């Protein structure tokens, strides 16, 4: 499990990797919240490209960050989840709280 950050304009890009379960979300949560406090972005992009597994702990992680950003007028983008992770996100109704981007912005502009 590893997290990389990239802050551009008002967008914080967080590249998650490995397995998102209850054990790993404890550390992910504190690292993401530290970055949110430091950069105060308008948009939080969670990139799932390198995430190999996610259970409902990941849903709790997204909902918790939504509760932080939403009162500040911010938004969350969930980018490039695998087919299975997209299924879990939809089952949890996450597309009502966040934008689901199955493809990268580059793929969208190329098509």
């Amino acid at each position: 499990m590893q997290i990389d950050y990239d802050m551009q304009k008002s967008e914080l890009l967080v590249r998650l990797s490995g397995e998102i379960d209850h054990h790993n979300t404890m550390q992910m949560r504190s690292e993401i919240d530290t970055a949110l406090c430091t950069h105060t972005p308008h948009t939080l992009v969670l990139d799932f490209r390198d995430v190999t597994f996610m259970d409902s702990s990941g849903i709790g992680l997204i909902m918790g960050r939504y509760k932080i950003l939403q009162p500040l007028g911010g938004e969350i983008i969930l980018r490039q989840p695998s087919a299975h992770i997209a299924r879990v996100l939809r089952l949890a109704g996450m597309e009502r709280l966040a934008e689901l981007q199955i493809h990268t912005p580059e793929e969208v502009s190329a098509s």
Partner: protein
Amino acid sequence: MKTMNEFKCVFPAVSANEALARAALSAFLIPADPTAQELADLRTVISEAVTNAIVHGYRNASGSVSICLRMLPDRVLYIRITDKGCGIPDIPKAMEPLYTSAPEEERAGLGFAIMQEFTDYLQVRSTPGHGTTLTMRRQLGQIHAEAD
């Protein structure tokens, strides 16, 4: 019912063992050659069940979680997860989507909803003060001769 294969293990109820439970299930399923989706579904199911035992059963106190996996005829996988934790006083309430007894841990309250969605059968037996046993079954699809 005849059991084709069986695997049992007991481990301490610590969060690092959630990955161990998924790995044990994956290894048990190798001979059955499940599809990528079946494997992902079942890894999610066992992760939810074991996390429930650790977070809700033991409230992060010490204890142990038992897993029993069986391959039954017609490619039916049987999963039983047992803890000797605090038990569930109101099972229908616990199974309501978005209900959680641990909001401070940012639990989404979707564990049972996911277990129900990704299995064919789910039974919850619980005695407050004595623990909880989850029993699930999922039929795997038939093996196709041609490659996917």
